[in-house]
């Protein structure tokens, strides 16, 4: 029997995420914590599972250990299938030498045999650095209807910000006639989301051509898609309406976490019809003590809260000691905030220890700069980390 899958998803998760600085020193960007419980990659993986796509190749390259362990056999997302399922694809050695992934298109090209194994009609290309809930099945449906070679998901952005994006200029029916990469004078406010559906045969053809072109930088946005358009292929935009946030920078990651707060959050994770699944920590319920105070915040399991928390996102197994105050901050799993310490406008990575009376991110200035403490660092008792500082080494230790 010849088995096949209608659609295979390929998730580009190899990016270093250098604009997240200390947060991605030891882990790949898609493994960065989000929303007190999730990792960024939970969103595309859950979207795939919810859209009925059960075959996903995850392309990793940079610091993949945490990400590989997190994905495991894919069981949390119901992606532990006997045919299909989630597969981590790393660069490998072949008969004619071995290569790192040179660009997004080359990464897919190097794993083209993985896709062909499933003999799919469509290939969905995803990236691992966005927070959103999207029904890919609807996009594929649209792709079939228009008979396009490629469909690109796009979102309307404010006109004044449009020049920061790769824009799609489209006709009334959504057919793309021009790409513009970060133009000074944008003609459109429709930005590409980096999510593509290809008709499989077309993808193979253009990837192979691109691979032979020595001048190409092997990138979908810069090379493959424009080449398809200039060859006269039918390409359509699929307009997405909903919450979508690139969390590739400290400030956008911070903002997106803050979007979860408030009574009617901009982005709702508690929607049971589109569940975002994740690898759950084994931890008891969180405890809030006599001296604890928590307002306008989200708190995950296993925390011991004896200080005060305001407008913050707290991951699992965080300890906040008596007298400590956490405000406008994001704290990742396992961090400990000592007695009477003050944390404001900060992102505190996993397993950081903030000593007693330390002051993080405190600033009298109106404009809030976000302080970042990298994974596992220690801040000594009474030490000060100024607003906006990004640290990946211990603070205030005696030589």
């Amino acid at each position: 029997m010849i088995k096949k899958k209608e659609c295979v998803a390929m998730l580009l998760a190899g990016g270093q995420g250098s604009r997240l600085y200390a947060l991605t020193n030891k882990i790949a960007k898609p493994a960065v914590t989000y929303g007190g419980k999730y990792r960024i990659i939970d969103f595309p993986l859950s979207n795939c599972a919810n859209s009925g796509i059960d075959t996903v190749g995850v392309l990793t390259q940079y610091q993949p250990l945490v990400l590989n362990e997190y994905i495991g056999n894919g069981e949390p997302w119901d992606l532990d299938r006997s045919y299909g399922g989630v597969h981590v694809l790393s660069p490998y050695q072949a008969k004619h030498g071995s290569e790192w992934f040179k660009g997004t298109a080359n990464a897919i090209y190097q794993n083209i045999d993985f896709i062909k194994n499933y003999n799919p009609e469509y290939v969905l290309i995803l990236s691992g650095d966005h927070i959103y809930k999207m029904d890919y099945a609807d996009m594929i449906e649209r792709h079939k209807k228009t008979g396009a070679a490629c469909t690109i998901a796009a979102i309307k952005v404010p006109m004044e910000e449009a020049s920061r994006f790769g824009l799609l200029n489209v006709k009334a029916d959504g057919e793309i006639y021009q790409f513009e990469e970060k133009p000074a004078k944008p003609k459109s406010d429709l930005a590409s989301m980096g999510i593509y559906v290809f008709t499989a045969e077309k993808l193979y053809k253009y990837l192979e051509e691109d691979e032979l072109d020595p001048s190409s930088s092997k990138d979908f946005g810069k090379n493959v898609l424009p080449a398809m358009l200039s060859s006269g292929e039918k390409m359509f935009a699929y307009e997405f309406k909903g919450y979508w946030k690139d969390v590739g920078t400290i400030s956008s990651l911070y903002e997106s976490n803050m979007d979860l707060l408030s009574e009617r959050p901009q982005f709702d994770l508690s929607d049971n019809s589109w569940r975002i699944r994740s690898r759950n920590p084994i931890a008891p319920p969180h405890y809030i003590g006599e001296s604890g105070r928590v307002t306008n915040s989200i708190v995950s399991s296993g925390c011991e809260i004896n200080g005060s928390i305001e407008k913050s996102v707290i991951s699992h197994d965080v300890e906040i000691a008596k007298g400590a105050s956490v405000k406008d901050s994001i704290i990742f799993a396992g961090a400990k905030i000592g007695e009477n310490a003050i944390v404001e406008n900060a992102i505190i990575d996993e397993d950081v220890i903030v000593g007693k009376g330390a002051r993080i991110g405190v600033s009298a200035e109106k404009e809030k700069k976000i302080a970042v403490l990298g994974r596992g660092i220690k801040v000594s008792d009474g030490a000060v980390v100024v607003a906006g500082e990004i640290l990946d080494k211990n603070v205030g230790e005696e030589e």
Partner: protein
Amino acid sequence: MSALGLVFSNIHDTNVPELTAKRTVASIPFGGRYRLIDFALSNMVNSEITKVGVITKSNYRSLMDHLGSGKDWDLARHHGGLFILPPFDNIGGSLYTTRLEALKNVLGFLSGAEEDLVVMSDSDMVCNIDFKPIIKRHGEQNADITLVYVEKDRASVTGDTNSFFEIEDGRIKSIAFDSKNDKVNLYTNICIIGRRLLINLINETLSRGNSHFIRDVLIPHIDSLRVYGHKHEGYYEEMTSLIKYYEESMKFLNKSVRDEVFRTASVYTKVKDSTPTRYGENAIVKNSLVADGCTIEGEVYDSIVFRGVKVGKGAVVKHCIVMQNCIIGEYADLNCIITDKNVVIRDGRTLSGCDVHPFFIGKGTNI
């Protein structure tokens, strides 16, 4: 020595009738996110026992739902893993009524196994016990049977089917069903026994027409077999009544109890993929345990709040146990209440029990 586990899920179903009307004692919710059986199963798994049979009798649908394939306890395995052992209908027979009859039902499971030892445990209790050193000691002492006990004040033992030990040099000298002493050695119903020995004892005892495990198996063999006691020093409590359940639940607001039972070794439970809990602008929460997936807009004091609970604006919840997916309406006022799952308290309602007698609201009630 290799061991397999056997967990009895129904033995004490009459203990907490309020909570077992629609479930087994094993599936009573506890501690904000667990079911009682999680403790027995986690003890087994943390002790590297990877083949566990769960003996069921009746009302076990919610238990099956909770256990699933056993994957949340790492018990979904090709080799070993979780075995649900439902009652096996004998010709003209009725369901088992005693522990020994329940064991007779699972003779096939026991004889088909390869493990040297069987670790038996009930599931009406909360504790964190490592069986590894007990099993090791069992072998070193060349014991036939090791029974785990805890030292308690007689007055604090409230169950109606207790067994008490007299111990001499680690060996159990006698077993009695009552004791006049102030301090007692209470049997936990956790028993480590050779698998072949257990099979022989079950057959021998049943063939004589006897049916009681302690009275007809343990007591007659107390001298002829090497029966040792192992004293468990940590937290161990049986949920023998609703009041006991309430008192013991509240002990988990104490960090030392929480650290011992929840943290010395992980307690596994069914994964729900809940979101973290969201606290509103005016939330006030003191001395409480709150599970994932809740929305807290009101005030919560000295309480245990399970997953997916909503506490509305202005609501005050004091000394309560609020189980999964309950909705506490705005400006409702609750004191010393236990709400079973899916209870809805409408806006503005006032309800109160008292600390020595909490008021219980059954599953799905709308007030």
